[in-house]
C-alpha cells in the first residue's frame, strides 16, 4: 500500500537509542509524516514486512544485526529509499553504508529539517522521472525511462531508484561529462557542498549492474578531474 498526496507518508526509524528515536519521531511528525519506530534490525525487518514504509532511516550502530546488515537485507527484496544515520564519520562507515545499498546518509547530530529535506528529495526520486522520454539504447543497454525499466542484452536489470535516476540523468546528456556536483544536484538535490562519495559509490554500484566488466567500464566512464559521462 503506497501513499500519495494527502495520505500520510510513512517513515520507519531504526535506532536503539530511545531518546533519539522519540525526538526524531516528534520532529518528523511536525512535517506531517507518520513514523514507525524499531529498536533493532530484527524488529525493523518484521515491521518493514508488515507496513511497507516509504522511507527507512537506519542507524548504523545497532546491536546484533548492524545497520549495514539490515540495509543489505532490505535491498535483497526492496528498492525502498534508505537513509543511513551514523555517529561515526570516518570514511569507512559512510562508504560501507552506501555500498550496502543506502541512498543517502546523515551524520549525527543533524537538524531534523535537513533530514526532512533529504526525505523529500528521496520521495521525489521514488516518483520516477518527470520528463518522459522515449526508450534509449546504448550498446546492449536499453533504458525505458517511462516504465522505469533498464535492460542489458534483453534482460531486465534491477536498479534502485537512485541508480536508475543517476543512469537517466547521464542518458539525458549522452557523451557529455557531468561533474560530481552536477549529479549531486540533479539526482540527490544537494548543492555544491554535497559529498562526492555519494556519486562515486552509486556509480560503482551502477557499473556492477550495467557493465559487462565493471573494472573496465564501457558505458559509465570516469573522466579524470572532471566527472562521469555515458559513453555512446
Amino acid at each position, binding site marked *: 500500500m503506497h501513499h500519495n498526496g494527502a495520505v500520510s507518508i510513512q517513515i520507519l526509524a531504526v535506532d536503539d*537509542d530511545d531518546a533519539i528515536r522519540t525526538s526524531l519521531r516528534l520532529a518528523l511528525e511536525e512535517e506531517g509524516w507518520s513514523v514507525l519506530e524499531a529498536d533493532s534490525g530484527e524488529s525493523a525487518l518484521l515491521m518493514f514486512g508488515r507496513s511497507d514504509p516509504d522511507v527507512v532511516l537506519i542507524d548504523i550502530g545497532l546491536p546484533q544485526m548492524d545497520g549495514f546488515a539490515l540495509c543489505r537485507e532490505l535491498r535483497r527484496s526492496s528498492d525502498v529509499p534508505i537513509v543511513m544515520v551514523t*555517529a561515526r564519520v570516518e*570514511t569507512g562507515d559512510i562508504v560501507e553504508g552506501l555500498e550496502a545499498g543506502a541512498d543517502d546518509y546523515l551524520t*549525527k547530530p543533524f537538524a*531534523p*529539517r535537513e533530514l526532512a529535506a533529504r526525505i523529500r528529495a528521496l520521495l521525489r526520486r521514488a516518483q520516477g522521472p518527470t520528463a518522459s522520454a522515449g526508450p534509449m539504447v546504448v550498446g546492449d543497454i536499453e533504458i525505458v525511462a517511462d516504465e522505469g525499466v533498464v535492460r542489458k542484452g534483453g534482460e531486465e536489470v534491477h536498479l534502485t531508484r537512485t541508480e536508475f535516476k543517476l543512469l537517466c540523468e547521464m542518458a539525458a546528456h549522452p557523451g557529455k561529462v557531468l561533474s560530481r556536483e552536477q549529479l549531486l544536484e540533479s539526482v540527490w538535490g544537494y548543492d555544491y557542498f554535497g559529498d*562526492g562519495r555519494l556519486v562515486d559509490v552509486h556509480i560503482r554500484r551502477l557499473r556492477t549492474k550495467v557493465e559487462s566488466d565493471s573494472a573496465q567500464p564501457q558505458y559509465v566512464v570516469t573522466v579524470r*578531474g572532471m566527472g562521469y559521462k555515458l559513453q555512446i
Partner: protein
Amino acid sequence: MSRPKRGLLSPLPLRARVILTFTLGTVLLAAFLVSTTYWLSRESMLRQRETASRTQFFANARQIQAQLRFPNPDFNLLLESLPSVSGSRSIVRTGSNRWYTNSLVPADLPPELVETVSGSPQAQSMRYQLLGKPHLALGIRLRPTEVSTVSDVAYFEVVPLAEIDDTLNSLGIILLVGAVVVVAIGAGIGISASGRFIQPLAEISSAATSIARGRFATRIARSEDPDLVGIVDSFIEMAQAMETRIARDARFASDVSHELRSPLMTLRASIDVMQSRRDELSERASAALELLSGEVDRFEHLVQDLLEISQSDAGAMESGPVNISELVARTVERLDRQPPVYVDEDLDNQLVIGDKRRLVQVIENLLTNATKYAGGAVAVRLQRDDNKVVIRVEDQGPGVAPSERELIFERFTRGAAARNRGSGDGAGLGLALVQEHVARHGGQVRVEARPDGERGAVFVVELPLAGQR
C-alpha cells in the same frame, strides 16, 4: 656539556669522510706497492744486466790476457773480434796513456774508474751517466807477462743501460696506471660501502622526517647487521610507541565526541520541535529556548571541531581533484555579507588534489574568523605563484600582533581580539583546523599585516596546484 673531540676531517659530512679515508688508504697502499715494485724490479734488472755484463767482461778480459802471451798483440784486431753484447763497447789502455779502441774514446770513461783500476788489482765497475744516459763502466788491470812488450795493460768496457731504463719507464707507467685504477676502485668501494653503511641512517632520517610530518605509520625495515640492530630496533620501537599513543589519544577524542553526538542529536531534534511550536510558548519560555538553541549550536560546533581535530591526527583523508577557484567562490557565496573575490586569470580551472570538504572548511573557518573578530572579510584574492595557489583572506579588523602570528594557529589558543570579546563564541579550534588541513594538503598558512599599511589582517593560504582540468 663536553662536546666530542673533533677530528681533522670532522667538518666534512660522514659519508665524505668515509670515502676520503678509503681513497687516502688506497692511495697510500698503491704508492707503497708501486714504489716497492718499481725499485725491486729496477734493482733486479740492473743486477741481472750487471751480472751478464760482468761475465762477458771477464770473458773478454781473459781473451785480452791471453793475447799478452804474444810479444806484439794487435789490440785493434782483437777488440774487433770481441763479441759485443747489448751494445757494449771496449777499450784497452797500455802504459799510462796509450789507447786501443774501435768505437769508444777514452774521454767516455769515467775518470774515477780509470784511476781506481790503475791502483787496484781487482776488477772495478760503476754506474754513471754518459751523454745523459745511464751506463755501466767496467775495468780491470791485466796481469803482466814476461814475453809481452807492452806493460801495464788495462781493459775497459762500457755497457749502455738505457734500454733497461726504457723498460723501467714502461714498467713505471704501467704501475702508475695500475695505481690510478686501484685508487679509483678504492674510491668506488668507499662510495658503495659508505652508501651501504649510511643507507640505514638515511632510511631512519627519512622515516623520522615522515613521522614528523604526521605520517605516523611510517616504518623502516629491520636490520640484520649486528652493528645496526640496536639503533634500528629502538627507532622502530619508538615509532610504534608513538603511533600507538597518538592513535589512542585520537581514539579517545573521537570516542568522546561520538558519545556526545547522541545526546546532541536528541537535543537538536527536541529544540527543533519546540521552535516549530514557538507560538505555544510564553515569551519567557521562548527567550529561554533561544538561549538553549544557541548554546546547543555552539556545543555542536565544538564537538564537530574536536572530532575533526582527532581525525586529523588519526589520518583518513579523501583525495580527489578540486577546482580551487570554484570552491572558494562557492564557499564565499554562502556568507550573508559576501566580500568580493578576485581570481587571477591563469587560475581558471586549476586543480588542487585534496579533500573538498576539508578545503571548504579551511576557507569557511577563515571567513568565520574574520566575521567574528574583524567585522568580516573585505576581500578574498586568489593568485597564482608558480605551481602554487595563494589564497588571501583580507579583513579590516584590529589585525594580529606579530607576537601572536604563530600562536593563533595552535589548538585552544585565541588571540587578543578573541579574548577581548566578552562572549566566548569559539573554542580556539577553527584556525588550528585550518593549519592542520592545509598542512595535510602540503600547503602553508600564515597571517600578515595588510600590505597597504591599513588596519587589518591578511590570512594567507598556499596550496600546491596539480594541473589544469
